[in-house]
């Protein structure tokens, strides 16, 4: 498989086939949304929008977009994770209250603990993410001589699998814990209400058949037994 297109751009057009828009590439080769396999393979239902990151640096954004497209790959069901807004979602979450450690007990002393004791890092989720991306890229450079986003899709999948299975160890933070946080946050972005920037145009809800937030089923609970309920989903954004 060929090398993935470069994503080191800080302002990007999330595109579908034929989308027009300006991708402002920073300093390096091609950054063309239109050639990305994610966009090419997906149903052409998403309109193009521009987005910018407020938390991630350009290299971090490149990592997270590549990861989002491997975790949630483009196919005939939906476009890839990045085009669905997952990278933007993660960026906003990390820039906001949750990323800054809201609702997290941050007092020391810190000990490693066992997994059943949960999150024990002195880092905020945003700092933890940042450290995890840096460590992942360091691992990729050491073993494959490139940053994660420059690897082939197959190589990226292998790295993610190794992180997930605990076959990669980082200094300082748990690689497996980083993967789990990355996966959980990506899935939140894919399935949350589009008001948060992911699940663009409710692609994930349409994929599974979740009708969204209106949800009045007093009669349907009986009449739709063993029967598919086909409606256009409604989101908070639609009703606001």
């Amino acid at each position: 498989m060929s090398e993935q297109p470069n994503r080191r751009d800080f302002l990007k057009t999330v595109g579908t086939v034929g989308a027009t828009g300006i991708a402002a590439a920073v300093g390096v080769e091609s950054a063309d949304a239109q050639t990305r396999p994610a966009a090419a393979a997906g149903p052409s239902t998403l309109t193009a929008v521009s987005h910018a990151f407020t938390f991630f640096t350009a290299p971090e954004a490149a990592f997270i977009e590549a990861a989002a497209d491997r975790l949630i790959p483009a196919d005939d069901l939906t476009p890839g994770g990045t085009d669905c807004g997952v990278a933007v979602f993660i960026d906003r979450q990390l820039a906001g209250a949750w990323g800054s450690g809201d609702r997290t007990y941050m007092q020391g002393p810190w000990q490693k603990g066992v997994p059943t004791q949960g999150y024990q890092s002195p880092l905020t989720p945003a700092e933890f993410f940042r450290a995890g991306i840096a460590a992942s890229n360091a691992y990729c450079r050491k073993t494959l001589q490139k940053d994660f986003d420059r690897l082939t899709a197959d190589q990226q999948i292998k790295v993610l699998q190794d992180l997930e299975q605990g076959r990669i160890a980082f200094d300082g933070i748990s690689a497996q814990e980083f993967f789990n946080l990355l996966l959980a946050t990506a899935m939140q972005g894919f399935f949350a209400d589009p008001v948060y920037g992911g699940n663009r145009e409710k692609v994930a809800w349409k994929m599974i058949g979740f009708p969204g937030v209106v949800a009045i089923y007093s009669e349907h609970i009986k009449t739709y037994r063993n029967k598919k309920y086909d409606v256009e989903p409604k989101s908070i954004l639609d009703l606001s």
Partner: protein
Amino acid sequence: MATRLREVDVVIVGLGWTGGILAKELSEAGMRVVALERGGMRSTNPDFAIPLIRDELKYAVRNALMQNPARDTLTFRHSPSEPSLPMRQLGSFLPGEGLGGAGVHWNGVTWRWTGIDHAARSYYEQRHGKSFIPADMPIQDWPMTYAELEPYYDKFERTAGVSGKAGNIRGTKQPGGNFFEQSRDRDYPLPALEPSYSQVLFNDATAHMGYHPFPRPCANASRAYTNPDGSRLGACVYCGHCERFGCEANAKGSPHITVIPKAMAQPTFELRTHSWVTKVMLDSTKKKAIGVAYTDVSNGQEYEQPAAIVALCAYAINNVHLMLLSSIGTPYDATTQKGIVGKNYCYQPGGGGVTLFFEDKIFNPFMATGAFGIAIDDFHANDQFDRAAMGALGGATINVGQSNGRPIGYRPVPAGTPRWGAEWKKATAKWYLRAMNIGVTASNMPNRYNAYDLDPTYKNVFGQPLLRLTYNFLENDKKVIAYVGQKASEIARSLNPTSMTGPGTLGDYNIVPYQSTHNTGGAIMGSSPGNSAVNKYLQSWDVPNVFVVGASAFPHNSAYNPTGPVGALAYWTADAIKKRYRQRPGLMT
């Protein structure tokens, strides 16, 4: 320097179900009542209005209605030999904060506990012999019988608008209800909800196998309802946003739409929000409480609120924490097994459930209510169930609910499916509508080492020691899950699914994934100061003008959800205060 306020008759710490019930009952009786709630004010409109309340990320993932562990949490370890570390983020359980407490964001399952639960030690000794109870399992009878509590269960069911079907009215079995339930004076106030397709399948399968299926009682109103106090509930619309959310339709029995507004209508009642009680103040004898110390967390101002009666009505965990911080009663020491406060912490083991996948069936998981369901009680309330064959005390209900299809949290895929990538995506798209769950909800018996005390290292935002929880699932729990999980699996197979996953086995307790907010014990009730922290009226043996109301009083945990007896005990305690304590303060016997 704290400001000392004017004395009142009763100060209530925490305004959820228990605090709300006491606030209403005692203020209506003319007592001067102040309730201190550490969270904020809230009401259905605008706080639970659609569309914003239907935000899974905000409410179900980021826990908007819950306590904030940054300010106060607990530490956790499996056994006394391990380091106890803070629960830095909420996970396994979700205590509420703000007006209405967990009574706002609960699902609504509302059981009356079994006769076996009310007389746990007596039952097992008589039926199986003393040696059937392990030496390190300190189970004990409740200090009141089911029959004594029956009118109070009834009162709570009426208040909360419980939908269900009686199985036994004044000794006569009722078709369609729970065959194994204790006798009740009358039926539920509302008929059962309309079952989902998955529940219809489960009902028919279990009936065919000779079990006794019935609709699980739930505080999701099957039709519009006005309770005996005149509070109005709307009809449930099966929206699938109960647990972790407030109900926009006022169809979920909740204190903020029932008992609390009634209390607030009384001139003798005052609510103060953002008021965090740090300590119960005792006099020099340590046998009498003189009030509570609290901080207004919106401005940092400290107050002392003197009161003749202190009612601890916080979440079960926080009741125990406050007792230990205030030196009420003797702290329990698992090593010596001396002391009592902190003893018999219990939870609710899971893992015995089964997920069924059908190529040819559609379940529409989003058409859902928090609590409706079909259950069988053949392996729990059934006193003919041979626990010797299981080799364990307690038991489990087997249920099919359908609480939600919210897609961040609910994405069933067959075993062996990767968690991400192309295969995961195809499987998620295929099976989301085509899966149903059979759940197993198990009892939890106490163990000498499963207990709370104060943490020696970690502090809360006020510089006070955090509560320390030492807890794990044990042999008895593992046997219950294995045995009843097998039964659930047989039921599942009879439905002939395309594939099924589970039942799992019960491993070590993990504080990370959500399981249930059913934390019980720590300030247990009993017949004497030697076996309990509080008496029959939930009154501290050591400081009799302190009442400790909630699931903290349970000496063990049933296979049922706790809120039914929590509500009943609150009414029971309020009655004892109104009718007896008020006339003659002191230890009631």
